[in-house]
């Protein structure tokens, strides 16, 4: 594909490949050295996937295909989509988990696939806590385990505050998950302590209302995360890559009467504790829930939510209310106001970059940042300016899997850039993950073909043994 792209400006050497760019000194294409891991360039595929896997949590060929597409596109590292360490911590049923040893070979196969395209694979270890969008049959009969017994405020998910026993059990599950990732030959793990999942629910002063040693002061609220890091280090040792994704600012008041939650200063402190506890990198995001008006930044297609959110109506007490707000155009301005008022004054590209700068200034481990990156020069300036060490990208890479190669070929922006329409996000509860911005494709059929391409090639089919049935 790079061959058909036109050469860059006539003057100077013609840069065609990432290797050329690296040789030419482009900061984007310089290797990034973590303590235990070196990545070939500064671009990471941020965590994203679809309902591609089996209901029991085992992963499929489809996921391998999905991840390989990005690896082939030239990113240095891939951060897996959210991977639950326990079935009770799933966000959406149908996403692969790492709660069983039996899945190690499957993940190993995925790792091999990604490595074959010269990219690193970092498993994002996660627990939904209360943010359980589609509970599935495993979880539908119980409230979500989290830091509080208060109901989640956007969808009305039911919650139960974790007991000490629950916490200990969960800490062990994270450690076991990290161990399985290591056993599978993956290149590292990331703790998803951002975007409103279980770690955020403990960290955030807007959510955590505990009165024991896991609630109250910032130190207490950070205890669960620090305990998990400590347990992982105990289990996998000091030489396995471990990074932590943090929401720099909670901005927990999406529902207007909620508390704002943690500030940047809180998160800078947490990042320092995290580094001290043994993390190898910090990954900066934003917001105490997902999605959040600032993550992913950009538009919110309420008209698409009107035909997809029905999958979530029964998940929470407020599901039907929200559906009505999306379904009826006369009511849409209500949600529009709630959502879009938070976006005022914030850019789309590099929405969390300034917060990353503050965190990088406070820690000595590398810092990654996510949020709307798509322009080579912008990313280059951020890296060369020392604001961050690398960036992670989800939507722009989904729109142009070869974004990195296009950058190397000299394009500042891809020909058909991501429009930040967030139609991918709005389709997530119901449809396969992919770019749903029809305007980027020659036809609707072309768009569907592109989305469906993840299912090819088919997994090898075999006749099961009688004992397996």
């Amino acid at each position, binding site marked *: 594909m790079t061959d058909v792209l036109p050469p860059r400006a006539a003057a100077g050497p013609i840069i065609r490949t990432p290797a050329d760019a690296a040789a030419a000194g482009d900061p984007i294409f310089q290797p990034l050295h973590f303590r235990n891991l070196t990545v070939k360039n500064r671009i990471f595929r941020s965590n994203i996937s679809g309902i591609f896997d089996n209901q029991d949590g085992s992963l499929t060929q489809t996921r391998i295909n999905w991840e390989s597409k990005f690896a082939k596109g030239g990113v240095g590292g891939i951060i897996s989509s959210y991977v639950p360490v326990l079935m009770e911590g799933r966000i959406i049923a149908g996403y692969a988990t790492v709660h069983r040893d039996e899945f190690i070979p499957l993940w190993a196969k995925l790792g091999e696939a990604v490595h074959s395209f010269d990219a690193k694979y970092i498993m994002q270890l996660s627990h939904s806590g209360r943010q359980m969008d589609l*509970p599935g049959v495993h979880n*539908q*009969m*119980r*409230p979500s385990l989290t830091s509080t017994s208060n109901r989640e405020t956007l969808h*009305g998910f*039911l919650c139960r505050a974790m007991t000490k026993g629950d916490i200990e059990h969960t800490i062990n599950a994270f450690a076991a998950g990290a161990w399985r990732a290591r056993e599978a030959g993956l290149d590292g793990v990331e703790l998803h302590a951002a975007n409103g999942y279980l770690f955020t629910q403990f960290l955030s002063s807007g959510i955590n209302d505990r009165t024991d040693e896991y609630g109250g002061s910032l130190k207490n609220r950070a205890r669960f995360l620090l305990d998990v890091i400590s347990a992982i280090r105990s289990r996998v040792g000091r030489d396995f890559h471990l990074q932590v994704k943090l929401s720099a600012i909670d901005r927990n008041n999406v529902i207007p009467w909620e508390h704002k939650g943690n500030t940047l200063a809180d998160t800078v402190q947490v990042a320092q504790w995290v580094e001290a506890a043994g993390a190898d990198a910090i990954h900066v995001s934003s917001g105490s829930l997902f999605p959040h008006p600032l993550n992913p930044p950009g538009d919110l297609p309420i008209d698409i939510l009107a035909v997809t959110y029905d999958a979530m109506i*029964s*998940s*929470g*007490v407020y*599901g039907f209310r929200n559906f009505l707000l999306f379904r009826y155009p006369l009511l849409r301005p209500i949600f529009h106001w709630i959502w879009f008022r938070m976006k005022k004054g914030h850019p789309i590209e590099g929405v969390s970059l300034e917060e990353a700068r503050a965190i990088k200034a406070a820690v000595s481990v590398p810092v990654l940042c996510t949020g709307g990156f798509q322009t080579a020069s912008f990313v280059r300036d951020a890296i060369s300016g020392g604001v961050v060490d690398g960036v992670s990208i989800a939507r722009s890479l989904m729109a142009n899997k070869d974004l990195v190669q296009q950058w190397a070929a000299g394009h500042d922006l891809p020909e058909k850039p991501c429009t930040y329409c967030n139609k991918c996000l709005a389709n997530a509860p119901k449809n396969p993950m992919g770019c749903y911005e029809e305007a980027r494709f020659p036809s609707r059929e072309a768009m569907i073909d592109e989305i469906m391409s993840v299912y090819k090639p088919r997994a090898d089919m075999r006749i099961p043994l009688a004992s397996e049935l």
Partner: protein
Amino acid sequence: MAARKAVTAVEAHLAATRWQLRLGVAVVALLIALGVIVLGLGLCAALRLSGSATPRYASDVDHFKYGSIGSEPQSGVPYAVWKALPALYPKQFEGRNDYTAFGFIYETDEAGVRKELPIGVSKRQVNGVDVVWLNCATCHTGTWRASDGGVVHVVPGMPSNNLDFHRFVSLLLTAATDERLEAADLFGPMEKAGAHLDWFDRLVWQAAVMPRFREGLIRVRGRLAPLLERQSPWGAGRVDTFNPYKLLQFGTPAASLTEAEVHGVSDFPAIFNQRPREGMELHWDGNNTSLQERNLSAAIGAGVTPKTVDHASLRRVAGWLMDLPAPVSPHPLNAQAALRGQAIYKAECFACHGGQEAGGYVFKAEKLGKVTPIALIGTDRARLDSYTKEFREQQLSKMFAGTPYQFRYFRKTDGYSNQPLDGLWLRGPYLHNGSVPTLTDLLKAPAERPKAFLRGRDQDVIDPVNGGFLTTACTPGQPTPRGTSCYDTALPGNGNGGHLYGVGLTPEQKADLLAYLLTF
């Protein structure tokens, strides 16, 4: 049967909290229902409290007798109270369940059923409450009979010879502070008198109608009582036009009235044939040359205010009065004597009064409708003096100020206006204060004129010999028959002197003149 297990935790939660939803829905439904009820009640109340209507009459004469000119809102009596009063004050009403005791006249309808209101009392809905009060016919409709026990003829436009307005007003002012007029005690008598009051009516009556009525009466009483104390009872057929006007319209304290102006009681005038009177000096003292303004001022006397006056109604009355003929005299005609009398009249009387001729009354005469100075006419000057310059200035500056109806024709005169004598046979007793019973008496020297005579109910038998009505002598201070009062010419304002025209004629000449005057 065991309760069905919920399918998900969310469903279980929703089922467990469904009572809250149901309670919420029930509360909202209740609030909506309450809202609807309150709205409905409010609407009903608004409809009932906004009623503002008055009966319209097809014929002009019925409109004159019963139509509203707008006196009710400010001055009226709630109809239910009006109906209950006779039972509450049996002594004053002489035990009758109507207002005839005060000289009000009742007619019967085609079916022979007596009408619910007397002539001169109109009804209007004010804020949904029926209120009655007076109109032009109150003071300008009288009766006559050919003989005692004869048919009572009701004549719209003639002076109200039966009405004792003073007694009627005094009763209301007495009632103002009387405990019998407290709402709670009034409901019984009102319902006995035929009023139908539901709980809402009672609420409105207790909260608004009665307090407003009573306090209005008490306010009027506060102003009028000091005046009435300084005056003798007015007696039937008479009214003090301007002194109550000063007190009620301009708040002039009664104590500030001079002794000269405080006795201005005079007779109700006849109001036939208004068109030829346009431009004449109207009122007894000729203080106004505009029919329209005189009418409006008279309406004020009946209780209208600049805010409540029904101009269209007044215009209809005024239009009808323009050509209302005086009824033809029923007295037997002595043609020869009358012819001789006409000649005497031409010489002695015509220049001031015009006269009855074959083609009708002649309203063109040299001094007709002009004021004759008091020094010349010599009649009682109390009525003239009751209209003062100060009062005139207040009238001109305040009455209907800022509207096209603002008063501008009133003026102060120095005598009494020469009146046309149309319908003269219905206009006794004579002179502006009704101090001379008959025409015969008027042709006598003042000293020979009757000193005291009865006025009031049943004093309406016409006198075919002397003109006017048959009158009975009385002794001031002695009891009089019910419904009458003894007119004492010795009282201030009641003087029967002056108007010496014709006094010097011979008895034969006087008889001839009288024969002619009986045709008026």
